[in-house]
């Protein structure tokens, strides 16, 4: 597995009347998934750190925007059911038909905020040599 996340994947929370909208930028596609993880981690971080843990995530899908939604929904599920607070992508393989990743984090008390990841306003595309993503979390 390779972790070519690329330099400086970034996320930025933008004004949204009711929910939490986040814009993601990165130098490659994998970086968008990393930036999404960072945004989600920021939303759920809180409480004391517990045992360090690595979890595997395997997701099928050819539509990158939906794969990003599935990625974040998987992190949400793990936070809620396994009290897993993600920190970083330890390894990832992104193929045309899905992804396989190892996510490093810790057991803890994820902050209770995110209910779901909407399909509203989704973005996953390259523009001007930079990859851009956008998602809206229902909170």
């Amino acid at each position, binding site marked *: 597995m390779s972790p070519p996340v690329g330099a400086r994947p970034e996320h930025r*929370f*933008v*004004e*949204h*009347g*009711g*929910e*939490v909208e986040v814009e993601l930028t990165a130098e490659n596609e994998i970086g968008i998934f990393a930036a999404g993880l960072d945004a989600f981690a920021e939303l*759920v971080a*809180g409480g004391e750190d517990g045992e360090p843990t690595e979890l595997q995530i395997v997701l099928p899908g050819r539509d990158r925007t*939906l794969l990003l939604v599935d990625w974040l*929904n998987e992190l949400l*599920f793990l*936070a*809620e*059911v396994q*009290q897993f607070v993600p920190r970083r992508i330890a390894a990832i393989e992104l193929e045309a038909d899905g992804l396989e990743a190892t996510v490093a984090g810790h057991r803890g*008390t*994820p*902050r*209770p*905020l*995110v*209910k*779901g*990841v*909407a*399909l*509203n*306003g*989704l973005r996953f595309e390259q523009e001007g040599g930079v990859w851009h993503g956008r998602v*809206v979390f*229902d*909170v």
Partner: protein
Amino acid sequence: MAVSSSTSELVQLDEMLWEIPAASRADMRVPARVFADRELLEAILADRALEQLQNVATLPGVVEAVLAMPDVHQGYGFPVGGVAATALPDGIVSPGGVGYDINCGVRLLALPVSADELGARREPLVHEFSRAIPAGTGKHGPIRLSSDELDEVLRAGPRALLARGIGCEDDLERTESGGCLPGAAPAAVSARAHERGAGQLGTAGSGNHFIELQRVDRVFDRAAADAFGLTEGQLTVLIHSGSRGLGHQVCTDHVRVMDAVQARYGIELPDRQLACAPASSPEGRAYLGAMAAAANYAFANRQALAHAVRESVRRVLGHDAAQATRQVYDVAHNVAKVERHGGRDVLVHRKGATRAFPAGSAEIPADFARVGQPVFIPGSMGTSSYVLAGEPGSMERSFGTTCHGAGRAMSRTRARKTIGGAELRRQLESQGIVVRCPSNQGLAEEAPFAYKDVGRVVSVVEQAGLARRVARLVPLGVVKG
């Protein structure tokens, strides 16, 4: 007269009702109407809520008009505070028109104790609420359910908890739809949703969910207040929660199914989150069965939360006070229901909007038959909440619906930048409000100034004839996730 907006032209139909004509966009099937006065309309125009409402007006099978309540604000797909009715059997059902938190709603309990009688026991009582009610995502509740027991909750709602001593028949009678939507199909609820829901019954959730101790500050309608069992000075507890992770997962699962199949039904939409299918289709029926199951779980969840409140009352105020703590009513504000309006069966989607049936409706308990269905409108944290009663105008103008809250006026990001949680906590406590919230950040995001003026919202629905004020409740203490 007309008021220009960034997206369309609003025409004023009467003092409290505005319309974006169907002709304003080629894909709109019906007009988009908003209940508001001028000041609220300005606030509503500050975000994309009305553009989203116009998108809702494109849904196949939508009838008469889509509606925005005065607390409307931007959501994801449907605006929060939006109402849309689709003709049955073949009009669409849209999971996004219900939202992730299926049957998010409010339940009001009335205590047989006045605020004066409570005296110095206020802080201990709020503290007991915070100890008895886990608030957050993933927090395991006090009720452990086997798979079969969870399915029984999905089928029967709070009735499934009576054998455990949680709630009573009177509670069921005083719950919208008796606490059980027909047609619940546990088999249409995914394994993942079951997994999220199994341990969360009796937890409140996060964001704007809360348990609030209140005092009846003013009664506006004596006859209705008598019917609801409310008197000035009395203590009440307002519970705001929903279907927790189980309902969130039901929405996630079925939005994706409909996103994948809608082209097969010839449906094209301006927003992917509006994903839908005909209510009569296999996908539509599956969603409605899963949604009813999640709604029943939410009714049961609020029943479990009410039980925890009663147990807290027992510990602080004694057995008799707990025994005499009655449920006023429980109403949903995120749900789709089959109802009859305008002489036909329609599926009414209420996303951040409350059913408000008037006196004489066969759907409401006999105790309220002469005054109308109770409706509870939570204010923002630190401000008043209102008890309303449904009015005939709701059946004539809004598919039997009124508002659901104050409605956000500011993003969470901006609220956090405007005030720190610690400072807000000090401000609320200086007003005499006991606050229990583990997250200063979460507290700041729910700051009172991040919401519209709930008094103005309520005034609009009253002047529009949708519901009337019965009582005002002021906060004494709040528990938030």
